[in-house]
């Protein structure tokens, strides 16, 4: 099987490089060669094509050019006949034991092979996923970092907003201070005028009150006891008349 793989690999190399196809398997490892910078061929997932379970397709192709379709079968039959006839292949107890052993191996491969293959595929896939994740994470990290940098740049360029705000604050405070001064002057003048007004109003009110008091006092002083008595009598008479009327 290895030689078949080598042959195929060499064929691919020939396609790429026009190298001579060597019949003999090249003495190099397929994927570790530092031969050239061509991309590595993917490893075949399936085995090569075979006929009757074991015989590689290439053998039949090899015979086809010389002998046609039946050639390899005739050759195989003849080979077996020769081996048996000349007793190169001796049919004895060991041959039978060998046959049983081979059939057992075939059975085991058929029975357990797929499971083992699945398990091996799983292991491989895990490794691939691990590396892929790592790669994806690195790329993602780089992209996030680029995005963050760009955002930070954008933010840093907003520094003018800060200074605009500060300047506006200064301007507003200056304006406010100026207005407050205007208000202070105006208020001070207004307060003094109000004070003058209040003083005059108070003086006038007190003079009026004083005059009223003086007049009332003099009137009260001028009432004699005789007048008082007459007024009282008049009042009583009025009351009596009102009582009679009701």
């Amino acid at each position, binding site marked *: 099987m290895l030689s078949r793989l080598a042959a195929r690999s060499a064929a691919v190399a020939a396609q790429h490089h026009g190298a001579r196809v060597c019949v003999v398997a090249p003495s190099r490892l397929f*994927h*570790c060669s530092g031969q050239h910078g061509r*991309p*590595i*061929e*993917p490893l075949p997932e399936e085995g090569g094509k075979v006929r009757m379970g074991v015989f590689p397709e290439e053998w039949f192709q090899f015979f086809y050019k010389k002998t046609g379709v039946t050639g390899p079968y005739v050759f195989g039959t003849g080979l077996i006949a020769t081996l048996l006839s000349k007793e190169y292949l001796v049919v004895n107890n060991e041959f039978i034991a060998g046959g049983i052993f081979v059939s057992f191996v075939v059975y085991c491969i058929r029975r357990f092979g797929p499971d083992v293959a699945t398990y091996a595929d799983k292991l491989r896939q895990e490794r*691939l996923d691990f*590396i*892929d994740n*790592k*790669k994806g994470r*690195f*790329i993602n990290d*780089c*992209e996030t*970092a*680029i995005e963050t*940098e*760009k955002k*930070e*740049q*954008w*933010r*840093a*360029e*907003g*520094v*003018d*907003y*800060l*200074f*605009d*705000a*500060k*300047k*506006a*604050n*200064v*301007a*507003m*405070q*200056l*304006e*406010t*201070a*100026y*207005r*407050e*001064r*205007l*208000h202070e*002057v*105006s208020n001070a*003048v*207004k307060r*003094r*005028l109000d004070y*003058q*007004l209040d003083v*005059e109003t108070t003086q006038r009110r007190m003079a009026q009150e004083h005059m009223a008091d003086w007049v009332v006092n003099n009137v009260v002083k001028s009432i004699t006891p005789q007048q008082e008595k007459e007024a009282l009598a008049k009042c009583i008479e009025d009351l009596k008349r009102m009582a009679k009327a009701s």
Partner: protein
Amino acid sequence: MAGRRAAVKAIDWIAFAERVPPNQKAQFTALKARSDAIYSKYLSTPEKPAAINFAFYKSRLANPALVDEFEQKFNAVKIPEPVDTYTAGLEEAQKKAQADVKSFVAESNARIKGYEEQAAVYKSLPPTELMTYDDVFAAFPEMKPDKEKYPIWPHRPIE
């Protein structure tokens, strides 16, 4: 008098807030609060004080000459404008900050270039199925097993 001053430049606080880095939010909030206080005080102070009705006082006060004197002196008084000692410093600080920003942007662009190169290296790797272990270890050196520290059997060089 005050009307001839240029109108105070309006600040777009929403756009500003978007640009503030998260670690400076607290400072931004403080600045916003102070600015709002200043602005509301500015708004609540009328541009001109209520005019004094001198005619009213003249008609009420016994001495109109006094009112006239008040009026003359009030109209003659010149109110000094507060001197602006901060804007120059702010301009200077702004220039400095802009220079800082420029150098930061240059540095940042250099960093971005580095990141892009790194990403390009990873993106240019062949599909993982086609990488050998040597390729993988070259691309991700941290995955390479440390044979010095964890030697495998037979733990010494084979002669």
